C-alpha cells in the first residue's frame, strides 16, 4: 500500500516536472526520515509528491480517506511511524488532545523564514501546524435552470426555498435541491453550518457544557427539514460523493457544496455538456438575520510528530516546508485548491471559497470536544429528519448523547 502510494507519488512528481519547472533555485535537501499520513485528494497528492522529491530524505506517504483513524495510533509510538500528519482544523484537535505533535516555533526559526504568518496555525502562542490551503462549502447552481425559471441567484436559504418551489412548480426539476445530508458526519456538518448561520453558540463559554437546545437550534432543524422536502427522498444516504453524482446526472439545480469538489463538477467528465457548462459557483448562503454566513471555513495543513528524533523532525519540516512553498504552484496545481501560498492566482473554480472567506464566514471550531458533539449530532438528527420526533426532542437527544460521551472522555467533570 505504502509502496504503491510512494510509486504513484514519484510518477506524479516526474510528470509534473516534465510539464512545468519546479526547480527555481529552491532545491530541497535534508537528511532524515519523512513519512506522511494524510487524506487523499489531488491537492494533497501534489504536496506529498513534492515533499517526497527532496534529496537525501528517506520518504514514504500513506494518503488514504481513513487517515483520521490511522494518524493518532501511528504517531503514538516512539519513534512514531508517521513523522508528519496532514490534517484539517477539525482533525488537528485529536492530535493536540493526544499530545502527539510538537510545537514548530524552533523549526520555523531555523528553517522556516520564508513561511508567511498567515500560514501559521498557533494555539496558545505556539505554532502547531502550517496551513497550505483553504476550503469551504458554498452555493453551486445551474445557470440555465435559474434562467428558465426566471430567478436570480439566491443569496440566502429563504431564497433557496422560494426558488426550489418555483422550479418544482414549473416542472423543470422534481427535486431541485441537493445537499450532503447523509446520516452521520455529513448531516452533522450541515447542522453546524446552519446553526452558525443562525448565530448559535455550541457550548457555554469556556466549558464543555453543550447548549444547542435553543431557538437557534430549532430554527436550524426546521430550515433543514424544509430544504429536505425539495431533495431526492433518499437524501439521508447521500454523502458528498452521491450528491455530486446527482448533480452530474442533471437532477439538481441548487446545492451547498465543498469548494474542493467544484472542479470535478465543472469539468467535462461525467456530465452532459448542458450540465457542466451551466454549473456556476457563488458565495455562501445566509440564513435568518445574524449576518454570519451559514457555512464554515476550513484549512488543511501539516504537523510534525512529537515522538521522533530531532534529525527526522528537521528533515520532515524542511521537506514539507518546501512542498508548500511557491515551488508547488504551476499550471497543473494552480486550480487544485485555494492555496494559501504566496503567488497563488485564483481560478474560476475557486471563486466560491474566496467569496466565502471575504463574506466573513467563521472557521470550524477548533475545540477539543467539538468532535464528540459532531458525532452525537450525526447519530441523533436522522430521527427528526425522517419526521419521527420533534426538533426539541432531537436536540435534547443530541445533548444527552454528547454529555454521556464527554463525561466518559473526561471533558465534563
Amino acid at each position, binding site marked *: 500500500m505504502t509502496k504503491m502510494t510512494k510509486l504513484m507519488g514519484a510518477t506524479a512528481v516526474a510528470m509534473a516536472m516534465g510539464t512545468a519547472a519546479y526547480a527555481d533555485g529552491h532545491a530541497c535537501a535534508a537528511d532524515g526520515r519523512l513519512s506522511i499520513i494524510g487524506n487523499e485528494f489531488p491537492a494533497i497528492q501534489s504536496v506529498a509528491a513534492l515533499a517526497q522529491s527532496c534529496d537525501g530524505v528517506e520518504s514514504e506517504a500513506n494518503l488514504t480517506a481513513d487517515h*483520521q*483513524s490511522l494518524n493518532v495510533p501511528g504517531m503514538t509510538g516512539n519513534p512514531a511511524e508517521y513523522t508528519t500528519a496532514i490534517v484539517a482544523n477539525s482533525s488537528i484537535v485529536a492530535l493536540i488532545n493526544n499530545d502527539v505533535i510538537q510545537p514548530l516555533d524552533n523549526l520555523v526559526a531555523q528553517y522556516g523564514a520564508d513561511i508567511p504568518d498567515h500560514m501559521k*496555525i498557533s*494555539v496558545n502562542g505556539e505554532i502547531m501546524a502550517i496551513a497550505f490551503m483553504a476550503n469551504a462549502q458554498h452555493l453551486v447552481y445551474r445557470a440555465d435552470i435559474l434562467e428558465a425559471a426566471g430567478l436570480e441567484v439566491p443569496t440566502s436559504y429563504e431564497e433557496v426555498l422560494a426558488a426550489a418551489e418555483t422550479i418544482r412548480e414549473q416542472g423543470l426539476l422534481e427535486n431541485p435541491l441537493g445537499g450532503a445530508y*447523509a446520516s452521520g458526519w455529513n448531516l452533522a456538518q450541515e447542522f453546524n453550518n446552519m446553526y452558525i448561520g443562525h448565530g448559535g453558540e455550541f457550548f457555554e463559554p469556556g466549558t464543555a457544557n453543550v447548549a444547542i437546545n435553543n431557538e437557534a437550534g430549532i430554527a436550524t432543524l426546521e430550515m433543514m427539514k424544509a430544504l429536505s422536502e425539495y431533495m431526492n*427522498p433518499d437524501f439521508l444516504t447521500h454523502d458528498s460523493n452521491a450528491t455530486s453524482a446527482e448533480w452530474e446526472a442533471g437532477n439538481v439545480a441548487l446545492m451547498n457544496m465543498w469548494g474542493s469538489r467544484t472542479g470535478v463538477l465543472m469539468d467535462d467528465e461525467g456530465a452532459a455538456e448542458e450540465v457542466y457548462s451551466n454549473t456556476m459557483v457563488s458565495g455562501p448562503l445566509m440564513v435568518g438575520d445574524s449576518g454570519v454566513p451559514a457555512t464554515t471555513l476550513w484549512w488543511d495543513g501539516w504537523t510534525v510528530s512529537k515522538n521522533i528524533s530531532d534529525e527526522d523532525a528537521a528533515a520532515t519540516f524542511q521537506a514539507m516546508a518546501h512542498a508548500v512553498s511557491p515551488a508547488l504552484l504551476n499550471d497543473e496545481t494552480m486550480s487544485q485548491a485555494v492555496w494559501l501560498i504566496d503567488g497563488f492566482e485564483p481560478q474560476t473554480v475557486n471563486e466560491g471559497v474566496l467569496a466565502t*472567506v471575504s463574506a466573513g464566514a467563521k472557521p470550524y471550531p477548533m475545540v477539543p470536544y467539538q468532535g464528540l458533539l459532531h458525532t452525537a449530532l450525526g447519530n441523533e438528527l436522522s430521527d427528526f429528519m425522517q419526521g419521527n420526533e420533534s426538533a426539541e426532542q432531537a436536540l435534547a437527544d443530541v445533548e444527552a448523547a454528547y454529555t454521556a460521551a464527554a463525561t466518559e472522555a*473526561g*471533558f465534563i467533570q
Partner: protein
Amino acid sequence: MRHGTFLAFVAPSLIAMIALIVFPVISVVVQSFHAQHEQVIEIVESCGPFGCSETTAVNQEATQALREAEPLGRFVGWDNYVNRGHLAFAEMAEAWSSSETWGEWWSKVMNLPFYGAIVFTLTFTFIVTPLTIALGFAIAVAVNSATRAIRGPLIFISLLPFIINPIVGSLVLFWMVDARGILGQAIQWLASDPDLSVKASTPMMWIMLMVYGVWHSAPFAFVVFYAGLQTVNQDTNEAAMIDGANRWQRVRYVTIPHIMPLVTFVALIQLMDNFRVFEPLISFSAEAHAQSLSTYILSDLTGETVLFNSAAATSMLTVVCVGILLSPVLVRTWRDFKRA
C-alpha cells in the same frame, strides 16, 4: 492418551488462544470499567489563516501528570454500562415513570441508541436465521433431486451469493433498489407510487437488510444440508416409498430427522453470524434507519475523539447477549455429548 501427551498436543493452540482471545477479552473487561482522565481545559488564543479567536484547549502538562499517575484512566465501576449510551438505567426509569401508555414507553426506549441497536440486531437474527435454514434446505432438496448432469452448474450458481464479498454483494443490491435502479423502479411500479423509495423508509430498509441477510447466507446452509442429504439412508427411504409415503412425507419423516443435528449446527453458526451483522448496514448507508450492535461499536471508534471505554462496554454487553442467545443450543449440544 496420557494427560501429559494430551497437554503437549493441545499446548500450541492453548497458548495461541490465551494470547489472542483470553488476554484481549481481559483487557476489554478492564477498559470497560474505566473512563478517560479528567481533561484539564484552559482558554487559549488560537490563530490561523482566518484570524485569531479565543478557544479552549487541553493543558498537556497537567493532563500528562494525571496520565502518569493513573495509566488506565479513572476507575468508574459500572458507570459505562449504565450511562445513556448503554443500558441507560436513569433514562429507562424516567421512561417507565413518565409514560402513560405502552406505546409511549416503547418509543422512549427505542429513542435510546443501545436499545435501538439491540432491537434491530435481535429482529435481524430471529428473522434471518430460520429463513436461511428453510431456504437452504429447500435449495438442497431441489438440487439433490435434479438430474446429475446439471447438478454441478446448479451448485456453483447456488453458492455464488456466499462467494461474493459481502461488501460487493450488498452494494450491488443497494444500487438495484435505488429509486432509479431496476428493483427500485419495479417496487414503485408495483405500489403505483412514483415517490416510494426503499432507502427513505425504515420498514423497507429493514426488509431489504434481511432479504440481503438471507440471500447471503442461504448458500452456507445449502452446502451443509446438501452434504447431509448424501448420507440419508436409502433403504429407509425406499421402505417409506413402498409403505405409500409421498414425497413430502418422506422429507418430513425420513430426511429431516436424519439431518436434525446439522440444523442445530447451522442454527448455532447463523445465530452468531447474524448477531454481529455489520457489512450490509455499512454498504446500504442504513445508519439513519438501523443500527446493529457492531455498527454501534464502530461509531464509538471512528469519531474524531475515540471512545475506547464506551466501545469496550458495548463489546462486553454484546458478549453477554451472544451467551444468552446461544445457551439453549449449547445446552442441547452438551446433552447430546453426554448421551454419546
